[in-house]
């Protein structure tokens, strides 16, 4: 079976197993999220980045995880290579990209603030002839809001780089570029302008997320405290996107009468995230519990280990934390503040204290 067939066969099997509500799977995930932590030249208001953390090291990844992850890498449709910081600001950035480019059949995806996506790097990505989806997180298109949001002077660099890559992408069908907008109380009013900007530049999509609150000082950044304004801006942006023919992906609005019915989140079936210490979790919002691949013999020992099986069972039974407090798993939960607050890595006391204050 060639690589493409392996990917397709795995996708079909994975889909069937999800539909059949299996909790022990024969299929592998269809996407892998390799957390590539790197230095960051911005200090975004809403960021979860810790004070210090080790940066990604390809040699270490290969030594520790490659063998166990190879069956996954051979079957995935997408490889997401994003983490804290700017992966393109690592001295080995190109080497890292080239490593993942070996898996030609998978679309590579990463997020960047745009400042490190230099013309040279853009050319390198395009010349690799791989399919790429790049999320450029700007959160605004005017210099003042950009500076407030990112606490940096990178606006000029970002704009120059965006210009270059958006022009360069006209000559390839293998590159998709989404403009990302993390909605907070600081920038929500700039969303319509951002949609206009994305239309001018030719972005494939404008993707809007609500920000997550990681620390108490980030509490009032949450649009939870500006529900009406947020809904209003979403409406404006929506109409504008139709006029300008831009694909706009908005999350649900606050206080809707109805929300799409709760569905079983697919991520525990389709995706895994691996962080530099070998911990494996289902998605970036999860993680209070995790499993490490380091002490397991094969990938399947993790994939069908206690953590993943439990989480799948809970999702099937509708009694997981995700069902209550995850906007992705249960969109109606967006009207509960808990859904905007990430508890990952916090002690029970910290969580209680936080919710008390909130």
């Amino acid at each position, binding site marked *: 079976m060639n690589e493409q067939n392996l990917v397709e066969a795995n996708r079909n099997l994975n889909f069937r197993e999800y539909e059949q509500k299996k909790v022990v799977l024969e299929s592998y995930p269809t996407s892998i999220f390799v957390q590539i932590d790197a230095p960051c030249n911005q200090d975004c208001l809403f960021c979860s980045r810790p004070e*210090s*953390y080790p*940066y990604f090291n390809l040699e270490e990844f290969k030594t520790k995880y490659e063998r166990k992850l190879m069956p996954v890498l051979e079957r995935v449709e997408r490889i997401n290579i994003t983490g804290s910081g700017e992966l393109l600001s690592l*001295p080995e950035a190109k080497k890292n990209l080239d490593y993942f480019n070996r898996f030609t059949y998978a679309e590579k995806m990463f997020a960047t603030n745009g400042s490190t996506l230099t013309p*040279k790097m853009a*050319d390198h990505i395009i010349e690799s002839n791989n399919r790429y989806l790049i999320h450029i997180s700007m959160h605004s298109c005017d210099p003042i809001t950009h500076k407030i949001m990112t606490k940096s002077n990178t606006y000029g660099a970002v704009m*120059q*780089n965006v210009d270059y890559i958006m022009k360069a992408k006209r000559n390839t069908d293998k590159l998709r570029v989404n403009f990302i907008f993390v909605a907070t109380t600081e920038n929500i009013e700039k969303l319509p302008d951002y949609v206009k900007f994305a239309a001018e530049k030719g972005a494939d999509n404008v993707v809007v997320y609500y920000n997550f609150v990681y620390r108490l000082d980030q509490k009032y950044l949450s649009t939870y405290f500006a529900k009406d304004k947020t809904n209003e801006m979403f409406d404006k942006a929506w109409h504008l996107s139709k006029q300008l023919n831009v694909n706009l992906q908005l999350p649900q609005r606050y206080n809707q009468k109805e929300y799409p019915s709760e569905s079983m989140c697919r991520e525990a079936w389709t995706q895994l995230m691996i962080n530099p210490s070998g911990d494996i979790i289902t998605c970036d919002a999860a993680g209070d519990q995790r499993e490490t691949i380091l002490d397991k013999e094969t990938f399947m020992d993790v994939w069908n280990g206690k953590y993943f099986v439990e989480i799948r069972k809970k999702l099937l039974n509708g009694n997981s934390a995700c069902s209550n407090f995850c906007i992705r798993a249960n969109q109606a939960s967006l009207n509960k503040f808990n859904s905007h607050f990430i508890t990952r890595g916090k002690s029970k006391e910290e969580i209680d204290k936080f919710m008390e204050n909130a």
Partner: protein
Amino acid sequence: MRISLVKCPVWGTREPPLALAQLSGDLKTAGIEVKSFDLNNYLYKNRDMSFTNLWAWEQVSFWYQKKEVFDFFDSILPKLESYVDDILENDPRIVGFSLESSSFYSTVYVSNLIKKRNKDIKVFFGGQLFYDRRNIERCFEESKADYILLGEGDVTVCELVKIIYKDGDVSSCDGICYKDSNKTVFTKPREMLKNLDNLPFLDFTDMSLNDYDDNEHLPLMTSRGCVWACKFCSTHSFWHGYRQMSAERIHQEIAYHKIAYPMAGHIDFQDLEFNADVNRLEEFCRLMIKYPPFGSKQYWLSNAIVNPLMTKDILALVKESGCKKLIFGIESGSQRVLDSMGKKYRVQDAKRIIKDAYDVGLKVTTNFMFGFPGETEEDFNETLSFVKEVGKYIERVYPSRTYFAMEEFSYVYDHPEEFNIKTPFNHHLYWQTKDGVNTYPVRLKRCQKFEEVCKDNGVNVDCGVKTAVLMDEYFNLGFYYDHERQYDKALEYFSKYLDLDSQNEIIKRRFEEIRGMNAGK
């Protein structure tokens, strides 16, 4: 895991210290929280008039004298105490010092202050001077340092911090030494990095360019070591061989820093030479031309060797890529002296490259030395002829203000007999040959003659960096005669100095001491 890194005086103040920037990058890459403190620059910026010239490199000898340094630091103790507060503010368990011979005593003083404040803080020193074991012993005698890092610190520092935070058993950490029951224990030597491309980018987070004398130049170092082994230079003793980053890696780092420092219009390559590998140079230039960082031309300058492979075409490419200036260590116009120095080039190559560079519009500056051991008047005259011939193509000529200083651990320093140097010598500036032909005043005279010839021939000659040439001359001659115990002459020159700068505390003090000695006779 938390650590503070400190740089004590004396060091350059033109741009942030690269050692701290590199170690900070190394530590952050390993997930260790680090804060850098450039005490050298802080004291320089906040110095008062009595010590205004202490950071001029011509007066570097001050920092080699324990009493002078300790007296000076005693006099500014409140300032230092407050700085130590800042170093300890983040509650680091470890404080590391990057030092050289010139910052040895200041580092000892400050590290002792830290230990006095909190004896549980682990202190380590690292720097090229520990290549010599005598300095290791001296360090353990004079200071309360817990560890000394030997060789390249990039990996060692991260490993040491992790071990200290884990269980403190540092015996497994390669590349360090420490005291154990009064015995100096050396761990296994640390292997040198094989591929400099894997080095993390420099981290200037705690050292804003705006705080330095030159905020338009961003310093970078893209190689370690030198392809040559000139006999007056100590580099070869510490950095064995030569390793360099790839052109791609350099270009990437420039782009990275340009985001943070868009105002830095120049890259200042501090490599000993940027053109050791002409293929790399060519590739780098092509990258800079095709991908100018953020769309605007990036200017750069660097040291260079007289590499015969530098053709006119290559020089033109260098110019096109944004190079403003190449700095050549010509040192002498005499082939005999160059050979004796171990310089691997022919005088005619130097002349050709200088002329070609001029033709393509590149600025060239050149450094010269005076009185390399064995240099005769005839040799010196050849240097004068050299500058007369090609001086018009040189943007600026830098005569060494130390004429020929004896560098610790250089070949000449380690082989005085071979160079007919009087032993034991105890001063890097005031050394002399056994026959008394080559002395400090002789070297000074040659330098003055060289300047004169340059001026007569319309060659732009640099006349000192931070202080007036005359002041340096009086300062150094005063101390030379003091060193030679010719006190009347010493007083004469100190007096001349004080006529120009009556506030200088060091000269004032020594002047009074000698006068007191003379009065007591």
